């Protein structure tokens, strides 16, 4: 721990000494590099932990448990939100407070939801960055989920699961 901190300080001082004075946080940069390393090619979305509405609804119909977090402002969430059992409403500007992070489950997949998926992608990636590996982001947000979720898709039995690896 101390050796690592010392190493960082030395590296930072060296960088400071050899440049115009500005530097970025190299340790944090390295953690982002690791976080985004798998986000490449056709699997980029999956590596970002995006879940499509269809997958989400099919999983729900198969009985899979999720805890959703609606991270929109309270004014937005006071009109409509996710109604699944255990679903949370925590505005993004309060999400990272310790007492709110304590409310997030570690053993159940978390799905972060917003209007169109943009805020959720930022917030969800932040949660994964600090160690919540079980966090997914609803791609396209409420708009896309509602587009997919109709009388038919909500009420038909779940589709047979594809074999793994396909």
């Amino acid at each position, binding site marked *: 721990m101390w050796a690592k901190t010392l190493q960082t300080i030395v590296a930072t001082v060296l960088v400071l000494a050899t440049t115009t004075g500005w530097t970025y946080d190299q340790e944090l940069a390295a953690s982002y590099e690791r976080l985004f390393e798998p986000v490449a090619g056709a699997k980029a979305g999956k590596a970002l932990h995006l879940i499509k509405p269809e997958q989400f609804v099919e999983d729900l119909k198969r009985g899979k448990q999720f805890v959703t977090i609606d991270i929109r*402002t309270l004014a937005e969430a*006071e009109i*409509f939100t996710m*109604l699944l059992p255990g679903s949370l409403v925590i505005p993004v500007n309060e999400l990272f407070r310790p007492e709110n992070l304590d409310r997030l489950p570690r053993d159940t997949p978390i799905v972060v939801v917003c209007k169109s998926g943009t805020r959720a992608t930022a917030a969800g990636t932040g949660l994964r960055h600090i160690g919540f590996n079980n966090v997914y982001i609803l791609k396209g947000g409420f708009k896309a*989920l*509602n587009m997919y*979720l*109709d009388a038919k898709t*909500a009420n038909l039995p779940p589709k047979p699961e594809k074999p793994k690896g396909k």
Partner: protein
Amino acid sequence: MNKSLARMYEQFFAAFEEQKVQEALHLLPPEKVIEVIKKREDVVLLDVRTRQEQSIIGLTYRDSLSLPMNEVFRPENLAKIPTDKKLIVTCQSGVRCTVIAVSLREIGFENVYAMKGGLAALMAYLEPKTAF
């Protein structure tokens, strides 16, 4: 054919002239719905989607009703519909709620409106800026 019902529809749709369709159909676009809510007007929202749909995404507005379309016209459910305030019916995309709103008006509920474009339009409109 039921001629008296046909006459009723004839009268109802007679108002559907060009430029007046939205008004005649009692369609409220999302911005109007949010405006009414923000003004704290006494308004009830009714979601007529199936239970399964509502179990995933649903209304949280303080004064809202949930009645799947096929159950709305049961006497015990009609009894839940307010007659002293505005009712705005919603659904996924604005189709089912328009049908229900028109039908409720046909049987005598006057202060009934449909959310134009349903939740899809509401979701496209509602954001931090417009919600606050």
